[in-house]
Structures are given as structure tokens and as C-alpha cells.
């Protein structure tokens, strides 16, 4: 999908088109695989929190308060791949 196509989808509020693009991106062109990758990342994010470890909430809150939305969105994509990598199930042909 081209950038123009995606911007038009935003203008049209075509959320199905947009989430399909995200799935294709995460699934290397396979939408079903991409859906599983999203689930995989969330599962990996959930696991380390189950034992309630101490976390750096000050860092989190400061980051959310002080960083621009573009940086935070970019971080969100980084975190997806971080947790997918951490799962040990890497479907991509290449590497980060």
C-alpha cells in the first residue's frame, strides 16, 4: 500500500484498511501471520508483569508526558518487534 493510499484511508476513516496494513507489515505480507504477531507481542508483554516486578513508572510517565506523539508511535512499533523477538518465535526473513 502506498502512503497516499493510507492517507486516503485515514481521511475516509477506513480503519479496516489501516489495520490490514499493520498486519501486513508485521506479517511480512501475510495478514493472518500479522494478526498472530500482534497477539504474540501482547502475550510477551503480559508475561513479565504477572509477578508484579518493580518497574520504572517514573521513566514511563516522564516519557509519555515529554515525548512527542511521533516518537511514542515509533517506540510502539519498536516495542512490538522487541517483544516478538523476545518470544523466540521469529518469522521474518531478515533481522532488526
Amino acid at each position, binding site marked *: 500500500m502506498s*502512503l497516499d493510499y493510507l492517507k486516503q484511508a485515514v481521511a475516509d476513516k477506513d480503519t479496516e484498511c489501516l489495520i490490514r496494513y499493520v498486519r501486513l507489515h508485521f506479517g511480512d505480507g501475510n495478514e493472518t501471520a500479522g494478526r498472530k504477531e500482534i497477539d504474540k507481542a501482547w502475550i510477551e508483554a503480559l508475561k513479565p508483569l504477572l509477578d508484579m516486578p518493580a518497574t520504572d513508572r517514573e521513566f514511563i510517565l516522564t516519557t509519555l508526558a515529554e515525548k512527542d506523539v511521533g516518537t511514542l508511535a515509533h517506540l510502539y512499533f519498536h516495542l512490538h518487534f522487541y517483544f516478538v523477538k523476545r518470544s523466540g518465535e521469529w518469522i521474518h526473513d531478515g533481522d532488526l
Partner: protein
Amino acid sequence: MMETSSQSNGDSEQLRPGLWQTVNERYPGSMITKDDLVPLARLKKPLSECRLTFVSTSGVQPKGSLPFDTVHPVGDYSFRRVPSNSIPDDLEIHQLKYPTVGAKKDLNVIFPIERLNEIADEGLLGELAPDFFSFIGYNMDAERLERTLAEDIADAVEAQASDIALLAPA
């Protein structure tokens, strides 16, 4: 099954005539048409007198340089200079979209830096430009790609007075 054909289609030959349709079904809106065309330049002197540079979408980069942004949903529009006298151990690959198993065993399969140095040493080529150029091929903004990345690399190639740019998609 992969389609193959040796039939000519106008002035071009499409080896996989179903490919564009497949791409368009998988990534709607990704097909780009352009009305302008820059014709390929003809060599004005023998290869043995030419300076050659190499331009690659492989995501190969010097170790220690900022990794290509492989996670951004719209792509990375930066490039890296790769000194043409680098050895494979000086380099690494950052990209998600092609298999790197072979390239990690022998970088030359995707970024033939040793082979190009060999043919320059043998005299088949005049010399190599000081730098080769590398970027990643996952870029969704074709206009930005042309306006920034392609122009920046073209300027860099021209600044090093290369006679030939060998282009290799990964």
C-alpha cells in the same frame, strides 16, 4: 506456481506476467506509474578506464553506524556509505524483508564487495569509487524516496566522479 514467460510485451519483457497483479492484490494502492523516464546513459570509455560505484537496497552497513530503521511502518529514507575497501567483517545487515541466511555466510551474495575489488585489481575495471551506497527497500512513500533518498545518493555518486553505478535490489 510461478508463471514464467519469454514473450515480449511491447518494449519490455515481463518474466512473471502475474507478478504485478499479485502485488496489487496483496498491497492495494502500491502500484506506481510514472510518465517521465530518464534513459540509461551509454558508456563513453572502456570499462578498464571507468570508476564504478555500487548502490544496493540490501541494508548492508558499516558496524557501528546507526542501524537502518526496520520497524518504521513507512520506511527509512536514509542511506549509508560503505567504504569500498571494507571487508565483510566490517559490515552488518539490518533489514527484515529478505532472507539473510546466505548473506551472513558470504556477504558477497548480496553485496559483492570482494568480487568487485577483485575485478578492479585484475584491471577489468579502472577503479572503485571510495564509497558504495546502501539503504533498505521497504519504503512506502515513493515521492519521498525519489525526492530525498534517490537524489541524495545520486549527488553522492556524482561527487565521487563515478562513471558507472551498479544498482542491485535485494
